[in-house]
């Protein structure tokens, strides 16, 4: 493989890895915020248990979102300096907004939420998690603005050898953005819901003591999954009105991604909306359904990656459609030993950490709400979870 292939593979692998954690973060954050709000209003210990248990899973997942995101952000400068050279004046703006404003606030407020338990006034603590949700979705917006610009460089004009921002409004209302953003948000809610259902089904199947907590969680998860898949499929089809003609023709990778995403997405939509949703009352009790729910948990992650394959491989050979090819965007001084070293480092370390992170999440799920470290009181024995 030459330098270009390795650099592309590096970005594809770290980007996919990043999204696996991001999609769950975006899906779980609003659900945890709703649980926390309910708890603040009701004082009900079941709501507290839900907030802490799902919150713990959310934050362990978030940790990997941060570290994979850092590596992604710096790859633009390390491997793809042609992008900054040609379109830095345009592409840099949403990226700067994402890091400077959205992520800055998200991480600061998440710190306040994680460590502010029993320290912050109750409603300020609730406000912190809602700020986390708001800024996480702000991040998603700016990243999708940047990605949509690559798909369709709206709002920019070519001046000499580079693109200049001429219409910020057009950049923010890119047709490649208006359907894709809700599509991604739908996929995230679907993922969050499916993970909640799978984990709840595990406990209900094994008849662990927290029957009420997981009964409620399973139903919450089902509602989120139903809303999510409906939004994702509707906005998925809406995108065909703005996708350039012939995008998927003769492009095997993009075609496979698109085909299997549609196949799996539609199948799941029918199962969730027509089979599971009508069963919402009995699903927590019908234990024979639970192994199916557990087995379905990985599917939203698979579909998410297929969707990005369709969108990103579908853009080849362009980095910025019609303006800059991927080959031309490659950093001029990048040599084989350099990219090989960073590939081994980034992909190796991040893959190892991702596996550790998933093992930890599975352990938290299996252990259940007893001894959750998140939100523990001083007197409460913590089992280091």
């Amino acid at each position, binding site marked *: 493989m030459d330098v270009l292939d390795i650099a592309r593979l590096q970005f594809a692998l770290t980007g996919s890895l990043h999204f696996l954690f991001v999609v769950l973060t975006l899906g779980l954050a609003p659900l945890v915020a709703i649980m926390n709000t309910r708890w603040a209003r009701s004082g009900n210990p079941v709501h507290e248990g839900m907030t802490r248990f799902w919150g713990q899973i959310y934050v362990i997942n978030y940790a990997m979102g941060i570290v994979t995101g850092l590596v992604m952000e*710096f790859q633009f400068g390390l491997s793809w300096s042609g992008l900054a050279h040609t379109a830095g004046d345009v592409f840099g703006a949403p990226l*700067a907004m994402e*890091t400077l404003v959205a992520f800055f606030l998200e991480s600061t407020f998440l710190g306040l939420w994680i460590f502010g338990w029993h320290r912050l006034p109750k409603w300020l603590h609730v406000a912190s998690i809602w700020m986390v949700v708001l800024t996480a979705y702000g991040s998603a917006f700016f990243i999708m603005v940047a990605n949509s610009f690559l798909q369709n460089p709206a709002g920019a004009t070519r001046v000499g050898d580079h693109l200049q921002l001429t219409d910020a409004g057009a950049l923010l209302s890119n047709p490649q953005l208006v359907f894709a953003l809700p599509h991604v948000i739908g996929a995230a809610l679907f993922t969050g819901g499916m993970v909640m259902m799978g984990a709840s089904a595990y406990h209900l199947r094994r008849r662990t003591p927290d029957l009420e907590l997981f009964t409620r969680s399973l139903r919450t998860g089902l509602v989120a999954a139903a809303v999510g898949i409906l939004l994702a499929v509707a906005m998925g089809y809406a995108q065909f009105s703005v996708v350039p003609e012939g995008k998927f023709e003769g492009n095997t990778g993009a075609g496979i991604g698109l085909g299997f995403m549609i196949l799996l997405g539609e199948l799941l939509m029918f199962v969730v909306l027509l089979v599971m949703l009508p069963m919402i009352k009995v699903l927590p009790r019908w234990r024979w359904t639970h192994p199916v729910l557990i087995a379905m948990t990985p599917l939203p992650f698979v579909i998410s990656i297929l969707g990005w394959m369709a969108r990103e491989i579908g853009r080849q050979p362009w980095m910025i459609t019609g303006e800059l090819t991927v080959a031309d965007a490659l950093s001029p001084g990048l040599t084989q030993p350099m990219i090989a070293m960073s590939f081994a480092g980034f992909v190796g370390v991040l893959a190892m950490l991702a596996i550790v992170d998933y093992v*930890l999440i599975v352990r938290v799920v299996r252990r259940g709400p007893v001894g959750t470290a998140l939100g523990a009181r001083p007197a409460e024995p913590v089992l280091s979870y």
Partner: protein
Amino acid sequence: MDIVWLAVFSALLIGYFALEGFDLGVGLLLPFLGRDRDRRDAMIGAIAPFVLANEVWLVALAGVLFGVYPSLEAEVLLALYPLVVVMLLSWVLRDAGLWFRRRIPAQGWRSFWEFAIFIGSLGLALGWGMALFALATGSLSWTGLALGGFVAVAFAYHGWTFLGRRLTSFPGGGSPWLSAVLAAAPAVIVLVGAAGYLLEHSAPSATLTTLGLMVVPFAPIMVGAQVLVWRTFGKADRMPSFF
């Protein structure tokens, strides 16, 4: 507008050194002062509520680098390529250490991730010294390790004064303000030298204005959030720590 953005860039870099400096310093001190498990828990627990709010200063700095100095970003990162890769991996390991350390109660597991916190903090401290040295001299060289050593010592001292203020059982002393100045000094010196060069390489004024208009409404919330962190966690207490 380019002056304003230079001020923002400088504030973020100096703020990162002054704030994340004590987090990394405590990571550096961990194997030397963390005699037993309780002491290590106390040391990490002391920085825990601040780490997330502190490390974002660098993430924001990278965002400004891409948005305001797009031509420099690629140039600088590419010139420092191997160093940037090592620093990123150090950062990733330090963070993973903090998040993972207390998730499984086995001694070997904790020791492994405590070592990751130390190595990650060391890699970042030495890396920053080498990076600043390279930016000042124009080329990456092993001589920069000397500045790396200074940064590591300054961070460790900053961590020491922070712990002294934070933990009653800790013998540390000295003013955290003074150690913050010391920790940020190398960054300040390089910034003073590079100010002209940065101004010359700013993005076009239309981009700077657009970015400025987008950031301004959020600036009070960003400052407010950082202030809230210090107001909430400024006084040490006995709450169990997640990290």
